[in-house]
């Protein structure tokens, strides 16, 4: 039986023109690479020229697309070295700033010839027909996944035309189309994709996000210019709610309040430094009454007494935490001590009590740090 199977497999291999051609192509490819390596005359035989992307002067989307077009038009029939070309194109995407562009990925897939890689029989389908090409497109799809680019149905059609319905890249595509929409908008604190480049917009987003804990909190943009004697002329994005104002009004004058920071908050790939106006924590009232304790039940039938007056207390707000009371948060354009001083002066207008409370600056980082930092993916 095994013999039979083996024979039929070979007959299929021989009958099929595609596979024999594939073998021939393979041999040809090996021959050329051998020649390349041993002769050292690379320019004559090399299939995918090196530095196609690296040597370009202007690195932007247009030149990237143009390079793909040049490659496609250079050798319209055989399009030799397309796998190497796609790999080098994938490697250089970030330098051209196209790593989040779906159209560019489509253009890269379009480099592959249509129909040629579609398996003609079950064995070809099962043993990954044209494995290098399939693996190359799987890697491309994975790069899309890493960059959070969701494919569309046009891409499915392209993959169907190239690899047929049993292609492995298509399976990857289906998996992506199942899972990616499920996670795309999952975050309860959505941030625009890509996040804004403007520092002020980013700071507004960050402060809004932090203060979203209290629906009543209001985000205000102050300008340091409005304060006399301010050195840094910059903007200050600050958030405070009515509850926080009340808490500050009730705060003991003898205890100091602290201006703490720069802490980091991340909005996708960008981070913003923010500062906190924090007071000393309120003593926590421990309610030790055990509701499950049935040993001391009072029976109302004997010796009726008026119910014991329970001590009332206000519910603690979100701003009162174990590590202190948060009175306000802010982000400034320069994150300098002077801009924070201007912030306190602005807050004093709404919270007159702040003028009487001692304020301690405990800044973690040296003043003068840049607020917004963009992290480049390496």
């Amino acid at each position, binding site marked *: 039986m095994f013999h039979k199977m083996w024979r039929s497999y070979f007959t299929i291999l021989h009958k099929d023109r595609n596979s024999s051609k594939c073998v021939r192509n393979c041999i040809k490819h090996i021959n050329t690479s051998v020649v390349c390596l041993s002769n050292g005359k690379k320019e004559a035989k090399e299939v995918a020229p090196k530095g196609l992307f690296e040597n370009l002067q202007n690195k932007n989307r247009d030149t990237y697309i143009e390079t793909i077009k040049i490659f496609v038009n250079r050798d319209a029939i055989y399009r030799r070295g397309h796998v190497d070309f796609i790999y080098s194109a994938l490697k250089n995407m970030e330098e051209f700033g196209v790593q989040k562009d779906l159209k560019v990925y489509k253009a890269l897939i379009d480099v592959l010839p249509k129909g040629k890689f579609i398996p003609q029989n079950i064995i070809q389908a099962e043993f990954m027909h044209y494995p290098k090409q399939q693996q190359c497109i799987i890697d491309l799809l994975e790069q899309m996944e890493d960059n959070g680019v969701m494919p569309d149905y046009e891409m499915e059609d392209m993959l169907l035309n190239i690899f047929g319905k049993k292609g492995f890249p298509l399976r990857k595509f289906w998996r992506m189309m199942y899972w990616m929409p499920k996670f795309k908008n999952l975050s309860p604190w959505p941030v625009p994709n890509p996040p804004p480049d403007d520092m002020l917009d980013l700071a507004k987003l960050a402060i809004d996000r932090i203060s979203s804990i209290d629906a009543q909190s209001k985000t205000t943009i102050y300008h340091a210019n409005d304060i006399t004697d301010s050195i840094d002329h910059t903007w200050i994005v600050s958030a405070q709610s009515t509850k926080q104002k009340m808490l500050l009004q009730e705060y003991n004058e003898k205890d100091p309040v602290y201006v703490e920071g720069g802490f980091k908050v991340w909005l996708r790939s960008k981070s913003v430094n923010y500062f*906190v106006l924090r007071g000393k924590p309120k003593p926590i009232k421990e309610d030790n009454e055990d509701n499950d304790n049935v040993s001391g039940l009072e029976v109302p039938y004997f010796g009726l007494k008026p119910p014991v007056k329970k001590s009332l207390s206000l519910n603690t707000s*979100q701003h009162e935490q*174990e590590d202190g009371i948060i009175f306000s948060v802010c982000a400034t354009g320069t994150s300098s001590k002077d801009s924070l001083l201007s912030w306190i002066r602005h807050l004093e207008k709404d919270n007159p009590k702040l003028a009487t409370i001692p304020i301690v600056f405990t800044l973690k980082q040296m003043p003068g740090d840049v607020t917004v930092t963009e992290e480049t993916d390496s």
Partner: protein
Amino acid sequence: MLPLTRTLRSLTKQRTGINYLKTSAPLQVFWERTDKGGYRDDRQYPPFKDRMREGLKELKKEIVLWKQEVKDHFEGDPVLIFRPGEVDVQWKFNKPECLDKWIVTTDSDNNEGYSTANLDLTQYGKGAFTGHLSMRVPKDGRVKRAGYCNMRTIRARKSFKRESHFNWTSYNMLVMRVRGDGRSYLLNINTRGYFDITWNDMYHYVLFTRGGPYWQYTRIPFSKFFLASKGRVQDMQTSMPLDKITSFGITAAERFEGDFALEIDYIGLEYDPNHVEDFAYEMYEMPKYIVAT
């Protein structure tokens, strides 16, 4: 690489400059040799004397554990009613001993990256998982991408180092009180099985953090967790076997380089009778030989 193949390789290289021979060992097996997945433990085995000394110290602790187990068995007082809204805390961060239950790993531990991470207690007695995510890939030609930091609990076990499982069948929510930095983190629930294909079974979900000075209270139903193995989401999904939980972990692996900080108060479990969903992800019938290939 074997020395023989190494010499052969150098020979062929000298003569022709081309590699004709395959020098890496081909993988001809489906089974996995070790649960480390190819990562070797290069730490030196301590000498006999030290092992005996350490072993006796361990014995003391194990007997304490065993005593407790026997006591629990004869007392026979298991929790039978799980009241809604009541959080049973599994891992709390309030004492330095709490940190002993956690293992922190980064890609730099295996020379596969440059990320660093720490798990400490803050001055207010909360756990702080902090560090730096670096996406710099070491130039060894083997590693394709880098940048992860991970904290996970030690495996559930009984006394005398016997392996066991956490049984969370009475709960349907994971409850956490955390304070993050706006990054999202990955929650991992490991359900390691006996056979090698189930060694890396892990259920994941995302933990989004608000960022800022406020603590956040997160409840995630177990039905939302999805199955993956070695970081690859599986085609055939099933709901989590809640009686076969071996460990829990949190990963910081966002594709943005920089510092991260996640403060954790506790990680607990809750039963919510209003949540009846068993598994959140629908499955489709597919043509043959497409799924799980």
